[in-house]
Structure formats: C-alpha cells, structure tokens
C-alpha cells in the first residue's frame, strides 16, 4: 500500500490524524497534513483506508500494490 496526501487540497480538519495517528500528522504552523508512513504496515491498512474515505477534502489517496 502506498499513501498519498495532497497538501494543496488539505483543509486541516485533522480527521486522518484522529483515525490513523501512526500514518498522518498535522504541521504545527498551519494544520496541514503530513505523511508519517507513506508505506504503512499491514495492521495500519484499514485505518489508512478509513482516513482516505473520510477526508472532507479528498486529500488522502491510497494506491494498492499489485
């Protein structure tokens, strides 16, 4: 799994951090998303997917490895 974040779309809602704090964080200076784990371990996949689904700005996307 590869996680992408689009800082330009991010509205700083922090949903991804509430759902998957091991994968996402927010910058202190503007609340914009930062990616802690671009390739999260398998036990974090469900949380990463949930973060992508609930992001209000659709700023989080997931690529599945094939």
């Amino acid at each position, binding site marked *: 799994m590869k996680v992408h974040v689009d800082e330009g779309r991010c*509205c*700083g*809602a*922090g*949903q991804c*951090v*509430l759902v998957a*704090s091991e994968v996402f*964080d*927010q*910058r*202190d*200076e*503007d*609340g*914009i998303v930062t990616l802690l784990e671009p390739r999260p371990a398998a036990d974090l996949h469900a949380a990463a*997917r*949930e973060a992508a*689904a*609930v992001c*209000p*700005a*659709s700023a989080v996307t997931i690529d599945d490895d094939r």
Partner: protein
Amino acid sequence: MRENELLRLPLPSDNPLEPPAEWEQLRRRCPVTTVELPSGDKAAYLTRYDDVKALLSDARFVRPTAGDVGAARIAPEGAGGPAADGSTALALPDRGEPHLRWRRQVGKYFTAKRMTALRPGMVRIAEGLVDDMVRHGQPADLKAGLGFPLPVYVICEILGVPAGDRDRFSHWSDAFLNVSRFTGDQTRAAYTEFAEYMSAHIATTRAAPGEDLIGMVIRESEGEGQGLTDEELLGTAMGLLVAGHETTANMIGKMVAMLLADRTRWERLLADPTLVRTAVDEALRFDTNLGFGIRRYLTEDVEVDGELLPSGTTVVCSMPAANRDERVFSDADDMVLSRSPNPHLTFGAGPHSCLGQSLARTELQVTLEVLLRKLPNLRLDVPVDELKRVEGLLVGGLRTVPVRW
C-alpha cells in the same frame, strides 16, 4: 409528492427523529429540484451524496453574502439574526486566498493533537455539569444541563476567557442565535457587549499572549507581520460562538436522544465503550435535524446530474438527505454504531468544511463517555414522538431532552 408541486423548506416530518419522506423520492427521481425558502426566494435543492459533496467541494463557490445581489435569502429581511441574513458582523474573509490565509492561521489551532490535549479539561467540565444535573434531581433536561453549557465553556477555554465569565458568553451566544426569544434590539445590545468584552480581552492578550487561540495567533504573527487585525480576531471569536455553540449544544441533545430512542443502542455502548468514536460519527450521519442545508451561490454555470444550473442560481445542499443516500451508505436508514468508514457530510466538504470538526467530535465523544460512565441507567423521560423540534432556521435540534437515570 406530485409533479410540479413546489416544495417548501423546511420539509415537514411526522416523527422528530425521522427523515422527511421526500428525501428518498428526490434522491431517486429528482436529484435537482426547485424549492422555496422561508423568505419566498427560490433555490435549487440537492439531495444525492455525490452531487452535494461535489458542489460543497467546489472552491469556485461560497455561501452568498450581502454583496451577492439576487442570491436567495433564507429568511425575510430582518429575521434570522446576524448569522442568517448574510449582512455578517463577522469581519472575516470568506473566499479565495484571503479565506485560505485566515483558515490556516486559525485552523492550525484546531489540529487533532491539540483537541486531544484539550480532552482532560473537557472531561472535567462534562463531569461537573453532570454532577450539577444529578444534584438538581430528576427528571432533568439534558440539553439545558449539559448540551448547552459544555460547548460554550470549552469555547471560553479556547479563547482564554476566565471561567467566571462563561455565563455571560452563554447569554450572548443565545442572543445571537435564538431569534424567537430575543428582539433585534436585544441581539444588537448583546453584540455590543460582546464586542466590548472581546476587544478588551484581545488588548489584554496582546500585552501578554497566553496559550489560548487568541494568544497563539497574536504570538505567531509577531515578526512576520502576517497576523490578524483586532477586527479579524473579534470576528474569529464571534464566529467560534456562532458556529460552535448552538450546533454542538443541539448535537449533544440529538445524539443522546437518538441513542436512547432505541435503548438497545445505549446498551450496546455500555457493553462496548470502544464504539464511542464510530457511534459519534454515526449520530452525526443519522441526524435529520441539521437545518435545511448549506447554500452556495453560483457565479458560473454548473452541470449537476445532467441538469444545467445557470450562473446566479442559489443552491441548497441537503447534507442530511445526502447522509441517507443508499448509493454510499449500506443500511442507510439504520443507525449502525460501528459504521466505518463513515464519510458523512454533516461538517460539509472541501475548503469550507467545518473548521471545528475535530473539536466537535472530541466534545461529543467526551460527553458520551462521561454519560455512559456516570449515568449508565440514563433513559428518555418522554416517548420519542413527544420530543419537540426547535423552530430555528439554520441549526436544527430538539427543544428539550428530558431524561431520568
């Protein structure tokens, strides 16, 4: 619903917690329809999830303001208070780059981490309010005892206002929003008092900025010259009250009422409190009393579901109708406490989605955790169909939530 019959908002519903029957029919057959607002003005009404999300996310369009001549008004002139009529006492940039700049300066305070740090203080506030409610005896109105004070106390903490002044903030906030209980003169008087208080508070904070939101914005603007003006700080404080108090207060009441309306829901949470996080978002999705939706004023032609909406149209996006869309949510008319993911639109979507959503979620989670722990025997003191809706136009809710424990 007959063809060619003009729908009037707000749509009536038989049961205070059930959706109006029209939503399902509109989503299926008529996803873009014309409605009449309480002002008599017409608007396009969207009810499908994909349409509502796409329009709310479209950075080209914002809520109509006084300058958008021809935009549909919610209420007739003069009714609806400063939050409804768009004349806006909020001196805040509402679009484009200036909005983005303001949003990032203030939004950085509302990070998930900071909200988590506020949690212990919220727990203490909630526990104190529940203790007071219990001391006054049962039955009690949970909305008055817990739902209404909790968010305003939290906003006071965020603004750095001393605890002793919380009840003045409660009164001002009520006067800004409760258009049926206060006259226009009373609302204006409340605003003058609020503005005087906040201006003095901002001046004090400038002299010695603390860890609160106002202090943070002031401190971080030193040096860069990129800070907010006193007027913008005042508007920000006003915005927090208007956007964050009544909405959260009502949501606390509705959430508890929905969970107690079918007490197996409450019992499921007692048995497994780890469901609190998903249960809160499901309550947000399931709520039908969100007010009638968010307006967007089109400044360009837009196609929605094959229909061309011309520039100059006012669109009303019904988030609660979208939140029941079967295309996106399986068992959409069931309250599924473990639902995940739950991409509901209650906080909007896109660049204007609710700035305080992490705060609201944290407050709702804390409220539910404290109630489950302290009052496990909580139950409604009236049959569900006797719960009464508030008459508000913007923020929906229940007038009272009578409970026993």
